[in-house]
């Protein structure tokens, strides 16, 4: 019989963790041991998650690519599928297809500085990259994370930053500061105020709302990063993950299989402006 790429692999929710208001991280274990063992992904790739009866939606994998026992996704309650997912409990069934797409340029970035910029839940697809870099710390030069969220409450992976700070620079900012917030305030671009790349050997990777990526890209260009070293992950309505359904097509490219990670020089050649 032909294997059917539309048929999800059965999986169970192992644990659910609150990250921020309406935002949770779900740890998921694929039931079949063989499939689980062969489930390899590259940071920046995504899966299609089935909540039976609600449908399927794409989510970035947020766990470390080194972990095979299970994987995680961080989800904000937004649409139909996420509403269904938030009603599930530990031990409930879900379905998994993937991983799909092209992730961050791990190889190209080696021996370079890496500037990671994230907005809100946009940190999710960058977390496995940060964890990969930390595991291979010697292969990368200066690594810095600029992360912006709406309010301190909206910051995800709050308990990770202290660990990450042992290996990389982390700077946080919030749009709306509260009394007990002593850090930066303003959009993520405020973190560029005193930032100058120390060399030409620098890559930037980013994920966030389209408006953030627009201004961050402008900022990066103004400090001299060439378009081919500015990478971002695009969000689109990806139904099939294989370039069939046509929904994610942007300027002639399928975000699901050619992306979701693109560099700015690729994107500049799109007829449609995606960022």
């Amino acid at each position, binding site marked *: 019989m032909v294997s059917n*790429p*539309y048929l999800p692999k059965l999986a169970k929710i192992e644990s659910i963790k609150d990250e921020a208001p309406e935002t949770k991280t779900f740890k998921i274990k694929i039931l079949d041991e063989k499939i689980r063992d062969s489930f390899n992904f590259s940071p920046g790739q995504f899966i299609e998650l089935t909540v*039976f009866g609600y449908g399927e939606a794409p989510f970035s994998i947020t766990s470390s690519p080194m972990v095979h026992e299970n994987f995680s996704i961080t989800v904000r309650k*937004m*649409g139909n599928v*996420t509403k269904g997912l938030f009603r599930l409990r530990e031990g409930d069934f879900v379905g998994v297809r993937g991983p799909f797409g092209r992730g961050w340029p791990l190889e190209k970035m080696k021996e370079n500085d890496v500037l990671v910029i994230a907005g809100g839940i946009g940190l999710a697809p960058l977390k496995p990259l940060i964890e990969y870099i930390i595991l291979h710390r010697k292969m990368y030069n200066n690594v810095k994370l600029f992360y912006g969220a709406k309010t301190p409450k909206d910051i995800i992976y709050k308990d990770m930053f202290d660990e990450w700070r042992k290996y990389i620079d982390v700077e946080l900012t919030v749009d709306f500061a509260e009394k007990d917030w002593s850090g930066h305030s303003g959009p993520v671009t405020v973190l560029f105020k005193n930032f100058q790349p120390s060399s030409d050997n620098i890559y930037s990777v980013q994920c966030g709302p389209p408006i953030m990526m627009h201004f961050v890209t402008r900022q990066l260009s103004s400090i001299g990063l060439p378009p081919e070293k500015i990478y971002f992950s695009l969000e*689109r309505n990806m139904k*099939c993950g294989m370039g069939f359904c046509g929904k994610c097509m942007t300027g002639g490219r399928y975000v699901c299989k050619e992306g979701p990670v693109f560099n700015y020089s690729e994107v500049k050649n799109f007829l*449609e402006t995606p960022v």
Partner: protein
Amino acid sequence: MERFLTIDKGLMDNFLERVMEYYQLIAPVRTEKGVLFEYISGKEEVDLTYSGHTILPPKKFFFPPVEEMFVYEYEDSGNIRLYDLLDEVSKGKRVIVGVKPCDINGLLVLDKVFTGEYNDPYYAARRKNTLVIGLTCNRPMEYCFCAYLNTGPFIKRGFDILLSDLGDKYIVEVGSEDGWKLIKFNLDLFSEARRDDVEEREKLLMKVEEDIRSKGLPYFETIEGALREKFLDEMWDEYGKKCLACGKCNFTCPTCRCFTITDEPNPDLKSGKRVRTWDSCHFLSFTRVASGEVFRRDRPSRFKQRIYHKFVYSINEIGSISCVGCGRCVEVCPAKINIMDVIKEVTFGVKPLSAKIGED
């Protein structure tokens, strides 16, 4: 495999009857609304005399408007079970007869999309279990423009058998081993074709080609550059204003294949099915993500997506443009947008009279 035979029109019924003993037959049927491809229960329903195109292309028999993909069901034990409906799709053998060259080429486009880098097993299974008997055109309709795309009236591949109407008989070209098998067990109905018959078909098709080529269109392979240059042209605003975003052009197109995937739970909430449904790049919801963001909000951008996918993006995607010149979108558009006018305007920079906004 170039092999020509003939069959008397009076014997065609016998041939189709024999085909129906082994295969499910799909054929053009004349109805009040027009000619449609349908499953046939009796040979008398088949109409091989239609000109131009059927209302819908044969696409729906390979990529149905609603495809049930799998069923999920919670068992009493609490476990969940999936039943793959692909197994059903793979069953049964079919023959589709009376497919015009434009529509055959439409299937060849879908083949490249659905069985390229990834394999769509539902489409592939239906394609595999269906033989195609083509039918060339004797008389083009006003909306036909295949001759500018090399998708008709001549056709070289994509059929198992190809019929051409020569008045009192059909000349039959065998296009594949499977096609030959269909004929070889029924050879009593066929005669070897004479050279005259082959020449007559050639003449007939040349006449059709000539008729179609009186429309003053550019050859479509040459328009990619002009389209790239005109992506930001004002002309799209006008077409965008005129377009009703109804999606009729998508649903009648032999190569449009965009879809969405949803779950349909049963009332017991313990079982349900996953379905995929035809979708349209003209719909506002097409690019909407969960946050509510719509990436092609304004109508000109959605209008352009169909045109650019067909004539520009497709070249990179499958190596050719993906319009086959059947003219269905011209026929069905309630706003009377004519793709031939669009292409003329892109290429020659002249707004054809029929495309003036607000004047129908």
